[in-house]
C-alpha cells in the first residue's frame, strides 16, 4: 500500500510564482482537502449574500486557495482582492458539515500575501503605523488617547467640522470620525489599580484582558466590566504589562507580529494565579481562545499557550455560568412600559467563542426589559476589525441591510459585545436609523447601569 505514504501530504508541485510558493507552504492542505464543496456555507456568508457570486463565498475562496496550491492558477490581483474581501466573521464554520477551519485558512492565505506586499504607499504607511507603531505599544496608545481627547474636548473637533477641513477625507472616514466615542489616556488600571476585590466571598480570581483600542476608546466599559465582575463575586486582577491581543494583525496577515504579542500576553498572564482570563470584546476573545493554535508550532510556548487559551472566557458567559448575579432593575426607565432591547451578535463571540446565548440570557434578566430578537442578528454588521475602513463599499452595503433589521425591532437600546460592532452600529443608527430614539451600548455598560444599589 504505497499510497498510504501520501496521506496528509501535499502534492509535489514546483511553484515558480513566489506568492504561489508561499501559499503552498503556509496553507493547511488537510483543511483544503476537508472542504467537500457541499455549499452549506453559502447562505451563512455575508459577502455571498450581498453579491450572490460563488468566488465571494467560503466554498469559492477555498477553491481558489486550493487551485493555487495545486498549481491550477496563478495568484493574481483578483485572488488577493478576494482574500481581502472576506469579513472573517466565520459564520461559515458552525454550519460546515466537515468542520473545515476556514478562519485559519483565510489567515494563512493573508499571511502568505503579506509576505509579498503590493500595497500602495499610503496603505503601506497606514498599516505600518497602526500594526507596528501603535497597537503593540501601550504608551503610544495612551498618547493617542490623550491626543484624541484633546481633539474632542479642546474645541478643535468643532473647528475641524465647522471649517470643512474634514471634507478632505474620504466619506467613510469622515463618518467614522463623527461617531468616535470620547477617548481617554487613562485606562482601567489608571482608574482602578491592578487588583480589585470581590464583593462578598470570592468565587474565583480572574484576570481582565483590557484590550488596546478598548482601553483608550472604551475605558469606561472596562471599568464597568471590573465592577460588574466584582459584584458577581470575582476578584479581578489587571496585569499592566499585557499588550494588544494581535487579532487585527492576525486577520490582516501579520502573523509574526500577532505571535510576538501572544507570547507576551501568555507570559504575563501565566505569572498570575488566576482561574479565568476575562475578555469583554468578542474580536479579542476569539483570538485569545485560539492562542494555542497560533503558537502550536512553537515548542517553547505551545504548552503555556494552551493553558492560556483554556482559561479565556467572555464576561457574559462567565457571569451566566459561574457568577452570583446581582439584581438588575430598570432604574433608568421613564415609563412603566417595558423598554425594548435588541442585541447584535459579535460574530467572533458567537461563531468562535460560541457564547451567543449568554448575553441574551443576561439581558432577559434585567427587570422591565422586553428582549426583541432581531432578524439575522447573527449576521455580520460589516465592521469586522478594520474591514469597514479598508472595504467601505461592501461594509456599507452590509450595514444598510443590517439597519433594516435593526429598525424593524423598534428597540430603545441596541446592545453589542465588541467595540468594532459597537462603533459600526452607532454609525448605522446615525446614517440609516433613528438616532433620536435608539441608543447603542455595550452589554456590560447596560447591565452595570441597571444594577441595583450600584452607588451604595
Amino acid at each position, binding site marked *: 500500500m504505497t*499510497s498510504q505514504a501520501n496521506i496528509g501530504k501535499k502534492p509535489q508541485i514546483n511553484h515558480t510564482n513566489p506568492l504561489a510558493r508561499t501559499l503552498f507552504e503556509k496553507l493547511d492542505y488537510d483543511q483544503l*482537502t476537508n472542504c467537500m464543496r457541499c455549499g452549506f456555507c453559502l447562505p451563512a456568508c455575508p459577502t455571498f449574500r450581498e453579491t450572490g*457570486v460563488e468566488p465571494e463565498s467560503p466554498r469559492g475562496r477555498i477553491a481558489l486557495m486550493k487551485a493555487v496550491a495545486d498549481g491550477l492558477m496563478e495568484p493574481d490581483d483578483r485572488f488577493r482582492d478576494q482574500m481581502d474581501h472576506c469579513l472573517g466573521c466565520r459564520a461559515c464554520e458552525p454550519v460546515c458539515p466537515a468542520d473545515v477551519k476556514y478562519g485559519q485558512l483565510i489567515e494563512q492565505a493573508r499571511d502568505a500575501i503579506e509576505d509579498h506586499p503590493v500595497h500602495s504607499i499610503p496603505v503601506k504607511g497606514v498599516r505600518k503605523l497602526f500594526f507596528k507603531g501603535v497597537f503593540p505599544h501601550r504608551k503610544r496608545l495612551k498618547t493617542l488617547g490623550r491626543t484624541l481627547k484633546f481633539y474632542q474636548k479642546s474645541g478643535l473637533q468643532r473647528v475641524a467640522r465647522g471649517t470643512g477641513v474634514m471634507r478632505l477625507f474620504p466619506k467613510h472616514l469622515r463618518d467614522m470620525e463623527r461617531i468616535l466615542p470620547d477617548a481617554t489616556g487613562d485606562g482601567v488600571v489608571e482608574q482602578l489599580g491592578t487588583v480589585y476585590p470581590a464583593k462578598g466571598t470570592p468565587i474565583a480570581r480572574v484576570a481582565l484582558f483590557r484590550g488596546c483600542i478598548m482601553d483608550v476608546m472604551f475605558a469606561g466599559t472596562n471599568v464597568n466590566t471590573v465592577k460588574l465582575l466584582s459584584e458577581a463575586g470575582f476578584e479581578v486582577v489587571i496585569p499592566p504589562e499585557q499588550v494588544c491581543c494581535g487579532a487585527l494583525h492576525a486577520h490582516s496577515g501579520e502573523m509574526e507580529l500577532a505571535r510576538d504579542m501572544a507570547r507576551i500576553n501568555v507570559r504575563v498572564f501565566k505569572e498570575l494565579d488566576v482561574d479565568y482570563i476575562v475578555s469583554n470584546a468578542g474580536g479579542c476573545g476569539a483570538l485569545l481562545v485560539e492562542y494555542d493554535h497560533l503558537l502550536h508550532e512553537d515548542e517553547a510556548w505551545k504548552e503555556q499557550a494552551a493553558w492560556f487559551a483554556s482559561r479565556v472566557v467572555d464576561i457574559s458567559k462567565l457571569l451566566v455560568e459561574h457568577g452570583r448575579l446581582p439584581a438588575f432593575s430598570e432604574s433608568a426607565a421613564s415609563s412603566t412600559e417595558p423598554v425594548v432591547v435588541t442585541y447584535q451578535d459579535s460574530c467572533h463571540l458567537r461563531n468562535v467563542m460560541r457564547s451567543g446565548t449568554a448575553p441574551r440570557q443576561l439581558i432577559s434578566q434585567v427587570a422591565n426589559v422586553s428582549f426583541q430578537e432581531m432578524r439575522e442578528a447573527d449576521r455580520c454588521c460589516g465592521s469586522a476589525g478594520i474591514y469597514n475602513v479598508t472595504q467601505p463599499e461592501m461594509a456599507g452595503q452590509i450595514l444598510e441591510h443590517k439597519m433594516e433589521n435593526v429598525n424593524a425591532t423598534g428597540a430603545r437600546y441596541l446592545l453589542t459585545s465588541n467595540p468594532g460592532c459597537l462603533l459600526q452600529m452607532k454609525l448605522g443608527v446615525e446614517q440609516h436609523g433613528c438616532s433620536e430614539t435608539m441608543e447603542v451600548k455595550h452589554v456590560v455598560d447596560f447591565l452595570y447601569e441597571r444594577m441595583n444599589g450600584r452607588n451604595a
Partner: protein
Amino acid sequence: MLHPSLAAQLRTIVGDAYFRDDQEALIAHSYDGTPMLQALPDAVIYPASTEQVSAIMKALSAYKVPLVSRGSGSNLCGGTVPVQGGVVMVMHRMNRILELDLENLTATVQPGIITADFIHHIESLGLFYPPDPSSMRISTIGGNIAECSGGLRGLKYGTTKDYVIGLEAVLASGEIIRTGGKLMKDVAGYDLTKLLVGSEGTLAVITEATLKLIPPPKSKMTMLAMYRDLYGAARTVSAIIESKIIPATLEFMDNPTIRVVDDFAKLGLPLDMEAILLIEQDGDPETVTRDIEQIRQICMREQADSIQVAATREEAERLLTARRSAFTALARLRPTTILEDATVPRSKIADMVRRINDISAKYNVTIATFGHAGDGNLHPTATTDARDAEEIHRVEQAFEEIFAAALELGGTITGEHGVGMVKAPFLEWKIGASGVSLMKGIKHVFDPDNLLNPGKVFAKESRKRVVIHHD
C-alpha cells in the same frame, strides 16, 4: 478560450459585469457538491431574463460551444461540472416569484430562487410546497427541477416532479417553449413537463416554472423506534405500508450512523442498537393520533427495543436533528465523504442494508447507511480520503457492487440525486441498451449538436455488470 467575437457577443447580451472569463470565475465554477470532480469552463455568464438566455443559446449554438446551466451547484452526481468546457450559466439573478395565484393554488417562479426562501414565503401565506431536499437552504428550485429532488417528505407527498405543472424553457437552438400550465388536467400530446423535470440540464434550460401548492397539514407527531434487530426495523417499514398507513416521514439510520450521529450531536442515543426509525405523521389531529398509535403497535410487534413519541414540538425537533445531522456527523470522520443514492422497493430495505454491510466488509471500506426507508431510498455513505488512490479504488468497486445489488433487488441506481457523471456508466444496467438508445434519440431531437450539459447522463462506455459471488 472562447472565440473573441463570441465572447464579445455574450458580453453585449448580459453586460460586462455579468460575463466573466477571468481565472477566479473559472475556478469557482469548476466544481459542484460531488467529491473528486473538477473541470474548468471557458467562461461564466449570469443572465437576467428568458430573452437573455435565448440570445445566449443562439450565440452558443452558432459557435457550437457547450453550456452547463446551474443554480447553487450543490448536486451530488457531478451534474454541473463543465467536463467539456464551454460556458457555465448561473441562474442566481433570475430569482423572483413571478406570480402567486391563490385562486388556483399555484406559484410561478424563476429558476434561481433558493428553495428554502420560496418555502418560507409560501408557508407564511398558509400554504405548503412539500419537496424538502436536505440542501434546501442552498439549492435553487431550478436545480431541484433539473435533478427532480426528493427529501424527507417524499413518501407521502412525492418529489419535485409531482409539483411542477408548467415550464418555460429555452432549447439548444435558442427557441423558447412552454409546457403545461396552471392545469390540473392536461393531456395535449406528450407530457414534456415531466420529461424536462429530472433531465439534468441536458434537454433545455428551464427559465420559469409553475408549481402546485397544497394546504398544509393541521398537525404533526414524531416518534423514534429503536431496534436491536435490523430486520425488525425493516419489517416495521413494510408492515406500516401494508397496514395502509403512509407516514409523512419514515427515516432509517444504521448502527455506524447512530454512533457517529450520537458522538457528534450528543443526543444520548443507544449505541448498541442495530437500527433506528424516525417516523412522522401529519394531517388532521384525530387521524395523526390514530396513525401514530397504530404505528407504535406495529413497532412493538416487530420487537422494537424502545419507542419514544415526542411530547412537544421541541422534542420532535430534537429527534429530527438526529436524522438531519447524519451527513454532518459522517463528514467529520474522514476528509472525503461520498454519499450515494441506491433505491430498492421498500419491502427489500433489510436485504439491501445487509448487502451493503457485506460489501463494505468485503472491500474493507467504511460505509454507513441512512436514508428514506419509507420510499426505499437509501444513502450508503463512504468515509474515505481522496488522496488515497488505492482506497478510493476499493470504494469505487464497493459502490459498483452496491448498485448491482440494488438492481438485483428490483431497485435503481439513483432515487433522487440524478445520473450526472457519477452514475452514467451504470445507466444501462437500469434501463437496458434499448432504453439508452431511446433516451439518446430524445436528447438528439432536443439538442442535435449535444451542446446542453454534454458528458452527463450518457457515458462513453457502460460498465460491465459485476458478477456477485454469494458466500
